[in-house]
């Protein structure tokens, strides 16, 4: 059905007339369909009804994104659809973030992510960023062609849970080891979870450079990030619950 037909024939749904349960279901659908404005409207309504920001985040946005992530992994949803859903989530997060900060709620996790020195490829990294954001992570993207100093500076400044590094070339991927080795020298390696990814990498390479995880694709990156952060925070149970 084209957009024009939808506009003509689909009855306008007034979100405010729904019960909480119906509204949450509707928001799952809206996120799944990448409806940015509708998801923000739903978020506003729940907040007006007295929902705490972290409840909206966890019970609606993160839960909704989990449905999207599962269907992406199973080949039911495709990249453009996931990006739309992540974009809708981002809109709702913009509403929630100041409230979450006010109440001092701990976010699901924070990640500093960037492509390594000598490498200017960023589509894969951007996909990971968007999926991470969609899953509720706070993402600090430091872009492409990052020497070790950039990573250290960002770690110092943002104190993330995770450092993510990306590379698309066999020439640039060894630089991941340079970064990790420097972190070791400075005695800060174990302060962070280090995840690596990129087309030429594999599991073995991830282990060899001393990363905590190799992420084959963006959906897997989110899964690994969630479980490692949860493990770190001593609540591994929650990650699988």
């Amino acid at each position, binding site marked *: 059905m084209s957009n024009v037909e939808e506009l003509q024939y689909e009855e306008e749904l007034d979100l405010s007339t729904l019960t909480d349960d119906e509204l949450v279901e509707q928001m799952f659908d809206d996120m799944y369909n990448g409806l940015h404005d509708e998801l923000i409207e739903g978020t506003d309504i729940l907040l007006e009804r007295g929902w705490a920001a972290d409840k909206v985040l966890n019970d609606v946005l993160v839960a909704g994104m989990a449905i999207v992530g599962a269907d992406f992994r199973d080949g039911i949803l495709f*990249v*453009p659809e996931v990006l739309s859903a992540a974009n809708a989530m981002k809109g709702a997060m913009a509403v929630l973030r100041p409230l979450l900060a006010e109440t001092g709620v701990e976010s699901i996790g924070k990640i500093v992510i960037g492509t390594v020195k000598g490498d*200017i490829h*960023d*589509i894969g990294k951007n996909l990971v960023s968007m999926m991470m954001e969609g899953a509720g992570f706070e993402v600090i993207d430091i872009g492409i062609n990052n020497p070790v100093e950039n990573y250290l500076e960002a770690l110092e400044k943002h104190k993330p849970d995770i450092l993510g590094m990306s590379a698309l070339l*066999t020439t640039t991927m060894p630089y991941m080891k340079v970064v990790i080795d420097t972190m070791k020298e400075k005695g800060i390696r174990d302060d962070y979870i280090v995840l690596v990814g990129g087309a030429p990498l594999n599991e073995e390479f991830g282990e060899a450079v001393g990363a905590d995880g190799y992420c084959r694709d963006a959906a897997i990156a989110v899964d690994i990030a969630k479980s490692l952060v949860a493990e770190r925070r001593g609540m591994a149970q929650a990650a699988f619950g």
Partner: protein
Amino acid sequence: MTDTIIGSAAKEIVIGFERPFVIIGERINPTGRKTLAAEMKEGDYSRVEADARAQIAAGAHALDVNAGIPLADEPRILAEVIQLVQSITDTPLCIDSSIVAALQAGLEVYQGKALVNSVTGEEEQLEQVMPLVKKHEAAVVAISNDETGISEDPDVRFEVAKRIVERAADFGIKACDVVVDPLVMPVGAVNSAGQQALKLIHRLRTELKVNTTCGASNISFGLPNRDGVNGAFLSMAIHSGMTSAIANPLHREVVNATLGADVLMGRDPDCARWIKRFREPPVTGEGAARGRRQSRRRRA
């Protein structure tokens, strides 16, 4: 009219504006192929050999050879693979690595005029790769990005390509020996990626007058029925002026789209290549029987 000639010791092929479209088979590449990577690392090249034969049989005009395996001796493996492939076929090769030492090792053992894949607009790269290309009198794939990244603006990428062609000339490499890769982005992630690529290909063809190649299947990353998008893209890119692609000839849509586009662009006189490729073989039964009867009559 620009012709880029590449060849083995016994065979030359031409990538050119008025020539049939050239398919460079992409399969000999361990990226994302776990078994192949493990085998290549152990020096088992049986799958490489099978991939080479299958791609040639399917219609590849040249073969890309890549040995980008993490934590492996890429220069040695690449050189060994090139020697192996050249021992079983005279199809020209495209030597593919982002490691200069691997390109060098490959060029040293290669028989003929290779296509080196690739050099970018990064000055450090240019200074390392271009002298190798010149020394071995090879042709080179130029990727239209530089230190600043991959621009989404096709006009910026055009300027990068132009600078690479100019820098190539500084090293004594002719423009006809530079094949530009416009860098095809996934249209599922960047919605204008198709239009960007087509616009850039057109400018490269009409203004810079160079041959072009690309990793065509990038366009459909993250989408269902990738073959459909790949085929459509290849046809449109050929109309815009693209003259070769690094693609999988075992995929029917690649062969259909490129041979079909050759027909429509007037590069397949009397549609002879198309007919030869797709003529139904005589079926057993009626057709076969007719053949037998005719030969009996002739003998009688």
